[in-house]
């Protein structure tokens, strides 16, 4: 297997950078992933952070990870147009090895007040997603990838996710970020086995793997359950390292494994030490499973055929449903209230299949939406 690079999600965050510093001093970090659209409130980026990005960019070891594009919004929004302009400028300033975004649409009144939620897997959403991925490619001219989602409403969605990702990526010949903590959430929240799930993903399209930590939360709607949430605020659990060991050998095009943790989980010396230890463990697993003397896989997740983006794909019915769903989740005082509102909404008996949604996941969607609406 070609060389796989050990990377960290490294943003302009004092705690993250402080946690990364010992690893940088020991030259252990082989690439960094930067969320280039997350600096929207920083008026001046420090010169030293730009220098850090440039150092990795010059070695073609900088990868871009978008957060706020809202890939599946039914309506094409001015914020998306601005996001693409920003991406284009940033891709001119830095040499990204590839660019990725998240699956889902953002709830909330604007792009920075919401959470990414799942969408129905239909021809409409497929066409919108394909259109948006083409536009991302046009803006950056780099390989484009999408990350698997941690959150799903139903087992049916969980099982269809990998195939839908493959269909979405086909026109841009894109790749998948397989987030193993997201996968772990799915395994635990829907009682599915790893073997059953991994067989449903096109692993020859996996160019990047993420690992991270998360948290558990009790469910009121289903008291027998605890919900695994992808909060990225804790050390990487042993189960996710096991998933990494099992997954790497199955991904022939793998180039990066990225460890992600939020700055708010890295405030103490102890948490920074866990971060350091987790990175070393991740690197050891990577080195066991890939040929460190070989070159990394070369780019080939680039479009094979030319395409047009002259016509913007939109669906106003979907957009209205997304607004309706966001409003329900953001205002519901309880699970019961959300269920009542959903049953009376335009999402009832539709492609959204809300009748199949698991109570504990509706409850989680409410919490996620309300967490990020501020």
């Amino acid at each position, binding site marked *: 297997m070609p060389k796989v690079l050990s990377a960290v*999600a490294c*943003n*302009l*965050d*004092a705690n*993250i*950078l*402080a946690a990364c*510093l010992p690893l*940088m*001093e020991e*030259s252990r*970090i*082989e*690439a960094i992933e930067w*969320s280039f659209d*997350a*600096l*929207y*409130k*920083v*008026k*001046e*980026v*420090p010169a*030293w*952070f730009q*220098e*850090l990005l440039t*150092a990795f960019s010059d*070695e073609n070891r900088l990868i871009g990870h978008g*957060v*706020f594009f809202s890939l599946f919004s039914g309506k094409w929004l001015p914020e998306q147009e601005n996001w693409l302009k920003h991406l284009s400028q940033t891709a001119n300033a830095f040499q990204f090895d590839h660019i990725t975004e*998240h699956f889902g649409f*953002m709830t909330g009144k604007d792009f*920075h*007040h*919401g*959470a*990414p939620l799942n969408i129905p897997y239909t021809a409409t959403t497929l066409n919108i997603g394909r259109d948006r991925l083409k536009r991302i490619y046009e803006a950056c001219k780099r390989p484009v990838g999408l990350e698997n989602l*941690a*959150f799903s409403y139903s087992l049916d969605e969980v099982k269809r996710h990998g195939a839908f990702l493959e269909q979405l990526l086909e026109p841009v010949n894109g790749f998948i970020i397989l*987030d193993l*903590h*997201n996968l772990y*959430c799915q395994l635990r929240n829907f009682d599915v086995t790893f073997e059953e799930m991994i067989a449903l993903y096109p692993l020859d399209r996996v160019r990047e793997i993420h690992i*991270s930590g*998360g948290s558990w939360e009790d469910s009121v709607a289903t008291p027998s359950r605890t919900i695994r*949430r*992808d*909060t*990225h*605020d804790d050390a990487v659990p042993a189960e996710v390292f096991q998933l990494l060991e099992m997954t790497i050998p199955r991904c022939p095009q793998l180039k990066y494994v990225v460890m992600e943790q*939020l*700055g*708010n989980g890295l405030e103490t010396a102890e948490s920074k030490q866990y971060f350091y230890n987790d990175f070393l463990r991740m690197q050891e697993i990577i080195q066991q499973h890939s040929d460190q003397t070989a070159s990394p896989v070369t780019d080939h997740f680039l479009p094979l055929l030319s395409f047009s983006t002259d016509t913007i794909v939109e669906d106003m019915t979907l957009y209205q449903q997304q607004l309706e769903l966001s409003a329900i989740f953001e205002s519901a005082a309880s699970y019961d209230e959300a269920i009542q509102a959903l049953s009376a909404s335009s999402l009832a008996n539709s492609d959204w299949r809300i009748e199949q949604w698991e109570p504990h996941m509706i409850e989680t969607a409410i919490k*996620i939406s309300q*967490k*990020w609406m*501020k």
Partner: protein
Amino acid sequence: MKLSKSLISAILIGIAIQTTLVSCGKDEQPKPQEKPKQTQALDGCPACGMG
């Protein structure tokens, strides 16, 4: 990947001075060059996962 000592030093000084930096918080952040008044407790980024 090997980084220069001068860059490592610059990062060290930068994060020591700019302790309020967060990658995607929800509250207004100071300009990086401003001296922080107090440490902010901010949530992280939503789409890093589904939190």
